[in-house]
Protein backbone atom coordinates (compact mmCIF):
# COMPACT_ATOMS: atom_id res chain seq x y z
CA UNK A 1 0.00 0.00 0.00
CA UNK A 2 1.22 3.52 -0.79
CA UNK A 3 2.44 5.53 2.16
CA UNK A 4 0.30 8.71 2.01
CA UNK A 5 2.75 10.80 4.06
CA UNK A 6 5.60 9.89 1.70
CA UNK A 7 3.81 10.03 -1.63
CA UNK A 8 1.04 12.54 -0.88
CA UNK A 9 3.05 15.72 -1.48
CA UNK A 10 4.90 14.53 -4.62
CA UNK A 11 1.60 13.31 -6.14
CA UNK A 12 -0.15 16.59 -5.23
CA UNK A 13 2.73 18.62 -6.69
CA UNK A 14 2.71 16.60 -9.91
CA UNK A 15 -1.07 16.96 -10.33
CA UNK A 16 -0.87 20.72 -9.70
CA UNK A 17 2.06 21.06 -12.15
CA UNK A 18 0.07 19.27 -14.87
CA UNK A 19 -2.97 21.52 -14.25
CA UNK A 20 -0.76 24.64 -14.31
CA UNK A 21 0.89 23.51 -17.56
CA UNK A 22 -2.53 22.93 -19.11
CA UNK A 23 -3.77 26.34 -17.94
CA UNK A 24 -0.56 28.05 -19.08
CA UNK A 25 -0.73 26.76 -22.64
CA UNK A 26 -4.45 26.21 -23.29
CA UNK A 27 -6.49 28.27 -20.83
CA UNK A 28 -4.72 31.60 -20.21
CA UNK A 29 -5.43 34.27 -22.82
CA UNK A 30 -2.63 35.26 -25.19
CA UNK A 31 -1.05 38.56 -24.17
CA UNK A 32 -1.73 41.17 -26.87
CA UNK A 33 1.70 42.80 -27.06
CA UNK A 34 4.19 40.09 -26.09
CA UNK A 35 2.37 37.10 -27.53
CA UNK A 36 3.02 33.53 -26.35
CA UNK A 37 6.44 34.27 -24.85
CA UNK A 38 4.55 35.99 -21.99
CA UNK A 39 3.50 32.48 -20.85
CA UNK A 40 6.94 32.15 -19.22
CA UNK A 41 5.49 34.51 -16.59
CA UNK A 42 3.25 31.73 -15.10
CA UNK A 43 6.30 29.80 -13.90
CA UNK A 44 8.71 32.74 -13.49
CA UNK A 45 6.74 35.06 -11.18
CA UNK A 46 5.35 32.36 -8.82
CA UNK A 47 8.91 30.97 -8.43
CA UNK A 48 9.97 34.47 -7.37
CA UNK A 49 7.20 34.74 -4.77
CA UNK A 50 7.83 31.29 -3.30
CA UNK A 51 11.59 31.95 -3.11
CA UNK A 52 10.67 34.91 -0.86
CA UNK A 53 8.71 32.47 1.32
CA UNK A 54 11.72 30.10 1.41
CA UNK A 55 14.03 32.90 2.53
CA UNK A 56 11.46 34.04 5.10
CA UNK A 57 11.52 30.50 6.57
CA UNK A 58 15.35 30.73 6.60
CA UNK A 59 15.07 34.10 8.37
CA UNK A 60 12.74 32.71 11.07
CA UNK A 61 14.81 29.52 11.47
CA UNK A 62 18.02 31.58 11.72
CA UNK A 63 16.59 33.75 14.50
CA UNK A 64 15.29 30.62 16.26
CA UNK A 65 18.76 29.03 15.99
CA UNK A 66 20.56 32.11 17.32
CA UNK A 67 18.15 32.26 20.29
CA UNK A 68 17.89 28.55 21.16
CA UNK A 69 21.06 27.05 19.58
CA UNK A 70 18.98 23.99 18.67
CA UNK A 71 20.35 22.13 15.63
CA UNK A 72 16.88 21.49 14.16
CA UNK A 73 16.55 25.21 13.31
CA UNK A 74 19.86 25.17 11.47
CA UNK A 75 18.71 22.10 9.50
CA UNK A 76 15.42 23.82 8.56
CA UNK A 77 17.22 27.05 7.61
CA UNK A 78 19.74 25.20 5.46
CA UNK A 79 17.00 23.17 3.71
CA UNK A 80 14.89 26.25 3.00
CA UNK A 81 17.89 28.21 1.70
CA UNK A 82 18.85 25.42 -0.69
CA UNK A 83 15.31 25.24 -2.11
CA UNK A 84 15.09 29.04 -2.21
CA UNK A 85 18.29 29.06 -4.28
CA UNK A 86 16.83 26.57 -6.76
CA UNK A 87 13.74 28.79 -7.11
CA UNK A 88 15.83 31.97 -7.43
CA UNK A 89 17.90 30.21 -10.12
CA UNK A 90 14.65 29.47 -12.01
CA UNK A 91 13.76 33.18 -11.74
CA UNK A 92 17.21 34.30 -12.89
CA UNK A 93 17.28 31.93 -15.86
CA UNK A 94 13.70 32.29 -17.12
CA UNK A 95 13.64 36.10 -16.66
CA UNK A 96 16.41 36.76 -19.23
CA UNK A 97 14.87 34.22 -21.65
CA UNK A 98 11.63 36.24 -21.47
CA UNK A 99 13.52 39.56 -21.64
CA UNK A 100 15.44 38.77 -24.87
CA UNK A 101 12.44 38.95 -27.24
CA UNK A 102 10.57 41.57 -25.17
CA UNK A 103 13.35 43.99 -24.16
CA UNK A 104 15.83 43.01 -26.89
CA UNK A 105 18.48 41.98 -24.37
CA UNK A 106 19.00 39.04 -22.03
CA UNK A 107 20.23 41.16 -19.13
CA UNK A 108 20.19 44.74 -18.02
CA UNK A 109 21.35 46.12 -14.67
CA UNK A 110 17.82 47.19 -13.89
CA UNK A 111 16.79 47.39 -10.19
CA UNK A 112 14.67 44.19 -9.97
CA UNK A 113 17.22 42.09 -11.85
CA UNK A 114 20.19 43.45 -9.92
CA UNK A 115 18.60 43.05 -6.48
CA UNK A 116 17.48 39.50 -7.39
CA UNK A 117 21.04 38.66 -8.45
CA UNK A 118 22.28 40.08 -5.12
CA UNK A 119 19.69 37.94 -3.30
CA UNK A 120 21.03 34.82 -5.05
CA UNK A 121 24.62 35.76 -4.14
CA UNK A 122 23.70 36.42 -0.47
CA UNK A 123 22.15 32.98 -0.07
CA UNK A 124 25.01 31.33 -1.96
CA UNK A 125 27.13 33.00 0.72
CA UNK A 126 24.89 31.38 3.36
CA UNK A 127 25.75 27.96 1.89
CA UNK A 128 29.44 28.66 1.24
CA UNK A 129 30.25 30.21 4.62
CA UNK A 130 29.84 26.74 6.14
CA UNK A 131 32.93 25.57 4.28
CA UNK A 132 35.20 28.09 5.98
CA UNK A 133 35.21 26.34 9.35
CA UNK A 134 35.09 22.74 10.59
CA UNK A 135 33.26 23.63 13.79
CA UNK A 136 29.56 22.76 13.19
CA UNK A 137 28.31 25.30 15.76
CA UNK A 138 30.36 28.05 14.19
CA UNK A 139 29.10 27.04 10.73
CA UNK A 140 25.50 27.25 11.92
CA UNK A 141 26.08 30.56 13.73
CA UNK A 142 27.75 32.27 10.74
CA UNK A 143 25.04 30.99 8.37
CA UNK A 144 22.26 32.10 10.74
CA UNK A 145 23.66 35.65 10.86
CA UNK A 146 23.64 35.74 7.03
CA UNK A 147 20.13 34.24 7.08
CA UNK A 148 18.91 37.15 9.21
CA UNK A 149 20.80 40.00 7.51
CA UNK A 150 20.29 38.57 4.00
CA UNK A 151 16.53 38.70 4.38
CA UNK A 152 16.75 42.50 4.31
CA UNK A 153 17.20 42.18 0.53
CA UNK A 154 13.81 40.45 0.07
CA UNK A 155 11.62 43.57 0.62
CA UNK A 156 14.13 45.54 -1.49
CA UNK A 157 13.67 43.04 -4.37
CA UNK A 158 9.89 43.16 -3.96
CA UNK A 159 9.56 46.95 -3.95
CA UNK A 160 12.49 47.69 -6.28
CA UNK A 161 10.13 48.13 -9.25
CA UNK A 162 8.16 50.85 -7.46
CA UNK A 163 11.18 52.51 -5.79
CA UNK A 164 13.45 52.74 -8.84
CA UNK A 165 10.88 52.52 -11.68
CA UNK A 166 12.82 50.07 -13.84
CA UNK A 167 11.63 48.19 -16.95
CA UNK A 168 10.40 45.20 -14.96
CA UNK A 169 6.60 44.85 -15.07
CA UNK A 170 4.60 45.13 -11.84
CA UNK A 171 2.87 41.81 -11.30
CA UNK A 172 0.66 42.00 -8.26
CA UNK A 173 -0.42 45.61 -8.33
CA UNK A 174 -0.83 47.75 -11.40
CA UNK A 175 -1.55 51.29 -10.24
CA UNK A 176 -4.24 52.82 -12.41
CA UNK A 177 -4.14 49.84 -14.78
CA UNK A 178 -6.49 46.95 -15.43
CA UNK A 179 -4.28 44.32 -13.79
CA UNK A 180 -4.30 40.71 -14.96
CA UNK A 181 -7.04 39.40 -17.21
CA UNK A 182 -9.19 36.78 -15.29
CA UNK A 183 -7.81 33.67 -17.10
CA UNK A 184 -4.26 35.00 -16.62
CA UNK A 185 -4.91 35.70 -12.94
CA UNK A 186 -6.33 32.19 -12.39
CA UNK A 187 -3.28 30.62 -14.10
CA UNK A 188 -0.92 32.79 -12.09
CA UNK A 189 -2.66 31.75 -8.83
CA UNK A 190 -2.42 28.09 -9.86
CA UNK A 191 1.28 28.64 -10.52
CA UNK A 192 1.72 29.99 -6.99
CA UNK A 193 -0.14 26.98 -5.56
CA UNK A 194 2.07 24.61 -7.58
CA UNK A 195 5.30 26.20 -6.39
CA UNK A 196 3.96 26.19 -2.82
CA UNK A 197 3.34 22.44 -3.09
CA UNK A 198 6.77 21.98 -4.68
CA UNK A 199 8.41 23.90 -1.83
CA UNK A 200 6.58 21.79 0.78
CA UNK A 201 7.47 18.62 -1.13
CA UNK A 202 11.17 19.50 -1.39
CA UNK A 203 11.28 20.52 2.29
CA UNK A 204 9.75 17.16 3.26
CA UNK A 205 12.68 15.50 1.45
CA UNK A 206 15.50 17.89 2.36
CA UNK A 207 14.86 18.22 6.12
CA UNK A 208 15.16 14.45 6.81
CA UNK A 209 18.35 14.46 4.70
CA UNK A 210 19.70 17.25 6.92
CA UNK A 211 18.91 15.16 10.01
CA UNK A 212 20.62 12.11 8.45
CA UNK A 213 23.72 14.23 7.66
CA UNK A 214 23.72 15.38 11.29
CA UNK A 215 23.60 11.73 12.47
CA UNK A 216 26.46 10.97 10.09
CA UNK A 217 28.54 13.80 11.53
CA UNK A 218 27.89 12.44 15.06
CA UNK A 219 28.86 8.90 14.02
CA UNK A 220 32.06 10.12 12.33
CA UNK A 221 32.99 11.92 15.53
CA UNK A 222 32.38 8.74 17.56
CA UNK A 223 34.41 6.66 15.10
CA UNK A 224 37.27 9.15 15.22
CA UNK A 225 37.23 9.13 19.07
CA UNK A 226 37.27 5.32 19.05
CA UNK A 227 40.25 5.29 16.67
CA UNK A 228 42.11 7.83 18.84
CA UNK A 229 41.52 5.69 21.96
CA UNK A 230 42.85 2.59 20.15
CA UNK A 231 45.98 4.45 19.02
CA UNK A 232 46.47 5.88 22.56
CA UNK A 233 46.25 2.46 24.25
Amino acid at each position, binding site marked *: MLDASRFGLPVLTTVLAVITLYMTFFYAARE*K*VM*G*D*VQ*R*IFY*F*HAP*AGLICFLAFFVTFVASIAYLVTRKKKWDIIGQASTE*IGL*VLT*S*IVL*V*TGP*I*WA*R*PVWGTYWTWEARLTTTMILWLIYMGYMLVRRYTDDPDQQARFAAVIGVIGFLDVPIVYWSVSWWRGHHPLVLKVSGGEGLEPTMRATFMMGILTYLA*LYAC*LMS*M*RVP*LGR*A*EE*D*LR*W*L*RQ*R*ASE*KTSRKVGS
Partner: protein
Amino acid sequence: MEQHFPFLFWAYNIIWFLICGYLLTLGFRQRRVEREVARLKRTLGMGGPA
Protein backbone atom coordinates in the same frame (compact mmCIF):
# COMPACT_ATOMS: atom_id res chain seq x y z
CA MET B 1 3.37 39.80 -33.45
CA GLU B 2 6.15 37.21 -33.28
CA GLN B 3 5.45 34.19 -31.08
CA HIS B 4 9.06 33.41 -30.02
CA PHE B 5 8.32 29.73 -29.36
CA PRO B 6 12.01 28.75 -28.98
CA PHE B 7 12.27 31.09 -25.97
CA LEU B 8 9.15 29.58 -24.42
CA PHE B 9 10.43 26.06 -25.15
CA TRP B 10 13.84 26.67 -23.53
CA ALA B 11 12.43 28.50 -20.52
CA TYR B 12 10.14 25.59 -19.62
CA ASN B 13 12.80 22.96 -20.30
CA ILE B 14 15.32 24.73 -18.11
CA ILE B 15 12.80 24.81 -15.24
CA TRP B 16 12.35 21.02 -15.46
CA PHE B 17 16.10 20.54 -15.79
CA LEU B 18 16.79 22.58 -12.63
CA ILE B 19 14.07 20.87 -10.56
CA CYS B 20 14.97 17.35 -11.75
CA GLY B 21 18.68 18.10 -11.25
CA TYR B 22 18.02 19.16 -7.66
CA LEU B 23 15.85 16.07 -7.00
CA LEU B 24 18.59 13.80 -8.39
CA THR B 25 21.18 15.53 -6.19
CA LEU B 26 18.95 14.96 -3.14
CA GLY B 27 18.60 11.27 -4.08
CA PHE B 28 22.37 10.81 -4.49
CA ARG B 29 23.10 12.57 -1.20
CA GLN B 30 20.46 10.51 0.63
CA ARG B 31 21.94 7.22 -0.65
CA ARG B 32 25.52 8.29 0.13
CA VAL B 33 24.56 9.29 3.70
CA GLU B 34 22.60 6.05 4.26
CA ARG B 35 25.56 3.94 3.04
CA GLU B 36 28.03 5.86 5.21
CA VAL B 37 25.76 5.70 8.30
CA ALA B 38 25.34 1.93 7.87
CA ARG B 39 29.12 1.46 7.44
CA LEU B 40 29.96 3.54 10.54
CA LYS B 41 27.32 1.75 12.63
CA ARG B 42 28.90 -1.57 11.67
CA THR B 43 32.37 -0.21 12.52
CA LEU B 44 31.18 1.09 15.90
CA GLY B 45 29.03 -1.98 16.56
CA MET B 46 26.00 0.07 17.57
CA GLY B 47 22.28 0.46 16.90
CA GLY B 48 22.21 4.20 16.15
CA PRO B 49 23.11 7.67 17.38
CA ALA B 50 21.60 8.95 20.65
